[in-house]
């Protein structure tokens, strides 16, 4: 009996000890969690300029130098719009519709192979032809002016057909934005 008691006590001690020992092992393990320190800043930054705003900051000279409005050329002694120039006028019209504040001047020019007088009239007819075409494409008349320079302001000097072709032209010049 006595022996039985000792065993019991020992077991109890062992269990006790084991228990207490086990308790020690079971202590909470150290976690490696990183705390985020954060703050949502209000999103204020320099806004990108709209195309229109960029446009308004430029001088007329700068805009004209960019060449957004392309020249068109004409056949000798003619003021009808050539088929291959219609695309140019459509592109010009697209740009003009996008920049609706722009007022521009269409300047008609001729090559040197006519008289001064006749070319003054012909240059005007050329400018007028482009104006009418742009009217049909929805550009209001009050945004367009026309002027003829006849053969007084050739773009290039020369006597060959290539030169003449380059000089027979309408130029589109922005005069107000």
């Amino acid at each position, binding site marked *: 009996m006595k022996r039985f008691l000792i065993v019991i006590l020992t077991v109890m001690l062992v269990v006790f000890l084991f228990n207490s020992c086990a308790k020690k092992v079971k202590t909470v393990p150290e976690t490696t969690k990183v705390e985020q320190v954060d703050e949502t800043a209000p999103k204020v930054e320099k806004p990108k300029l709209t195309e229109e705003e960029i446009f308004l900051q430029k001088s007329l000279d700068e805009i004209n130098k960019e060449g957004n409005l392309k020249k068109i050329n004409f056949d000798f002694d003619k003021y009808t719009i050539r088929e291959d120039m219609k695309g140019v006028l459509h592109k010009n019209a697209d740009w003009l519709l996008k920049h609706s504040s722009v007022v521009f001047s269409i300047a008609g020019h001729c090559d040197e192979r006519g*008289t001064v007088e006749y070319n*003054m009239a012909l240059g*005007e007819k050329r400018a*007028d032809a482009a104006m009418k075409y742009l009217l049909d494409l929805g550009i209001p008349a009050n945004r367009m002016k026309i002027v*003829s320079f006849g053969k*007084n302001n050739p773009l290039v000097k020369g006597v060959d057909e290539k030169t003449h072709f380059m000089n027979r032209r309408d130029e589109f010049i922005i005069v107000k934005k």
Partner: protein
Amino acid sequence: MGKFFKIGLLTIALVIVLSSNSFSQEEIKVRITEGIPMIPVALPQFDYTEASQVDGNVLKDLYETIWDDLEYSRVFKLVPRQYFTYIGKLDQENIVFKDWASVQARVLITGKVEITNGDRIIFSVKVYEVETGKIIFKRNFAGRKEFTRLIAHRTSDEMMKHFGEKPYFTSKIVFVSTRDGNKEIYIMDYDGGRQKRITFNSYIDLMPSWSKDGENLLFTTYKKGIPDLVKFNLYSGKTDLISSGGVNYRADWSNEEDKLVYTSSKNGNNAEIYLREMDSGKEKRLTFNRIIDSSPCWSPNGKEIAFTSQRSGTPQIYIMNEDGTNVRRITYEGTYHDNPAWSPDGSRITYVSRIEGRFDIYVLNIKNNSMTKLTEMSGRNENPAWSPDSRHIIFTSNRTGNYQLYSIDYNGENLIKLTRRGENLMPKWQKIE
């Protein structure tokens, strides 16, 4: 600028006052008509005071300018100088007219040049009929040295007057030149002497023409970016706007009344012809269509207008009455005609034709419908304008590479180059009565 003109005018006035001094006792008048052979004139060297001899330029300028004027006139023919060596030296106090008759001279011009105060020229000229020894006229002209050429031209003008011709040697030519950078207006003597800039608009000035009194110019200026027609007073420097809107150009002032014709597109982007009364400012449109009508010019009597129209499909020359009625076409050959200019005597119209890409100047005799081609195979020839006596045409040509002004006789003879600096275009000769 205005000052220069005033001085010029004053000198002319002075010359006139001096020349009208009581020398008229023995003067005779000689009248010639076209077709009569040119009158042979002897022009021996002038006598001079010592001071005049020292200033050789004055003597030379006076003599050569008169020589060139008379040669240019096509009224006089100068007896070649070498003939003078066959006869005795001229003694102005004792002229041997037989000698001058022997070298075929019909008229003898003698002159004396004197310089006083170092700057003042007095030129005394006596002109004789060789056959009779009678004085045709004599004059004393005086002026500052800088007006030597003007004194010479005045002398030549006297010759013209006494032979029933228009005295145009003191008249001016207005033109456009690029010599100072851009196209500006200039004037010069009829022979290309004393060229002077008139406008300083720093842009394009074009197609000048004269008022009938010679005091005003009409021209097109791009000063405001568009081709406006303005009137410019040479003496006050004042500019008046005549027409604006569209293109406005090629104005011609009538001889008879104060009215002008010009080209404008102010009513709808198409060149039309307008008539304007200068006093009232009243305007009348003379052409109505959707094709180009341009380049109007008056007939000398102010009743008709020659102009260019594309109504047949190509630019051709037409004539209409001053109210726009009775339009008739005068050019048929070729597909491109422009620049009509009516001769002051009413008999001819000069114009430019483009044939196979070449621009040449033609003269149409409207009495017998005969046509003369004045220029051939030598560059582009444009902007013909008449001399006041209808014997010469001035025009621009790029025959030497760039555009210069030339004079040519109405029959295509005697081509003379008048300008050299820059490009020179659109000449118009001053109108004289």
